[in-house]
């Protein structure tokens, strides 16, 4: 260990059981934190401080003002900036002896496999069931240790999945909940509110589990679910048991072919339909963006303000589509429906997505009738 690291981690490796061995194991580990929100902030800060050698941050979201009461990694001046980028910069300054890599995109079943494969431990700090089930399934298939955390108003849950216990039993999230609940059954923080310190407490427990797993100390929550309420400190640790989960994909191919947006009910009411008569009004709203997904040389031209992004290039440019309302348009409404579906799968409910019924041909004939 280098002299500066000896000082940096002195209080930690002096710990009985942990020792220099534990410190070395942390330094050699690659840990991926999925979600840099309420749970992700403390996990990132403490694993970085503790000296986990290689930290990955997955989050496509930008800092919002309503995040700040529970995400103290971010400052007021960060509002509007990408969480993954802000967090990575702070972590690098906090500890310049480790490597931090940011992934400013949504984790989904199209990009998860290779990313998850390249890390040793995954930490679930997500805020929606779609990403949780994607993570659960890919980690189960890859036998990748998954440190799970989730919160609700004043209560939180922590568990360690995909790690075998002394009897060789290895539980996963689907052993708890084989199929996703509806969004009404488990509303998110935006709907129900959340006490700011709650994700701090639960995130620190997740960081604690990661350190225990890496250093080989204590008793990680393997095949156990810990639940605690902060109002009365009532807590329960239940021992899990494997159960049949017929919905779980059995291979990489099945995993990547699944439609998690529909499966988890997060693609609600599917995609909106806009009629020709509504299009003019929508096009002039400042929070709308019309996107023509036809080939660049297709006619007739769309006379309303829009961006032209051919369908095959749409997903590559998804990060530039920041308007609250995205309206996809093509010649007759077939390609725009496909484009809207792809965007909906990717963006979930973060932005409203609709497409023009009947396409530009229907819009033009409407105009001609006027």
């Amino acid at each position, binding site marked *: 260990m280098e002299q500066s690291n000896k000082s940096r981690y002195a209080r930690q490796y002096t710990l009985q059981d942990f020792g220099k061995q534990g410190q070395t194991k942390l330094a050699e580990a690659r840990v991926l934190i999925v979600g840099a929100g309420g749970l*992700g902030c403390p996990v990132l800060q403490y694993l970085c401080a503790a000296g986990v050698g290689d930290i990955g941050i997955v989050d496509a979201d930008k800092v919002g003002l309503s995040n700040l009461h529970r995400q103290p990694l971010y400052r007021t001046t960060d509002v509007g900036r990408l969480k993954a980028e802000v967090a990575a910069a702070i972590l690098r300054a906090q500890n310049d002896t480790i490597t931090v890599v940011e992934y400013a995109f949504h984790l989904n079943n199209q990009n998860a496999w290779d990313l998850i494969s390249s890390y040793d431990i995954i930490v679930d700090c997500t805020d929606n069931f779609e990403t949780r089930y994607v993570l659960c399934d890919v980690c189960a298939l890859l036998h990748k240790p998954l440190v799970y955390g989730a919160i609700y108003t004043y209560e939180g849950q922590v568990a360690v999945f995909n790690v075998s216990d002394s009897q060789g039993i290895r539980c996963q999230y689907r052993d708890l909940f084989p199929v996703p609940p509806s969004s009404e059954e488990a509303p998110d923080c935006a709907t129900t509110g959340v006490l700011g310190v709650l994700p701090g407490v639960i995130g620190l427990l997740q960081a604690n589990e990661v350190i225990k797993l890496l250093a080989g100390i204590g008793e990680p929550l393997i095949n156990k679910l810990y639940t605690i309420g902060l109002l009365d400190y009532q807590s329960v640790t239940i021992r899990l048991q494997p159960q049949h989960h017929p919905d779980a994909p059995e291979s990489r191919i099945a995993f990547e072919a699944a439609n998690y947006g529909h499966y988890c009910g997060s693609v609600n009411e599917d995609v909106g339909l806009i009629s020709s008569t509504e299009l003019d009004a929508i096009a002039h709203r400042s929070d709308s963006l019309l996107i023509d997904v036809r080939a660049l040389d297709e006619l007739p031209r769309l006379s309303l303000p829009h961006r032209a992004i051919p369908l095959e290039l749409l997903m590559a440019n998804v990060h530039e589509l920041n308007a609250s309302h995205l309206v996809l348009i093509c010649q007759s409404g077939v390609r725009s429906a496909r484009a809207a579906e792809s965007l909906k799968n990717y963006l979930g409910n973060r932005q409203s997505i609709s497409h023009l019924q009947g396409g530009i041909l229907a819009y033009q004939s409407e105009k001609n009738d006027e």
Partner: protein
Amino acid sequence: MMKIRVLSFGGLVEIIGKENMIEAIDTDQVVSHLEQTYPALAGRKYVLAINEQMKTENTLLQESDVVALLPPYSGG
């Protein structure tokens, strides 16, 4: 009939309250009693545990067992 203490967590508290004392011989009876009293419980997803051991099949209860009902949380 065994006297059973039922603890609930998360959003279930809004439906059935934090704690219920009920008489039942097995976990199926616990659930059917609760669903009779609180119809909104039907169809909800939760893990059921007896004395901190998760159960997925109907299980006989002992006097003063504690049953916990734990729903999924989505927040992060």
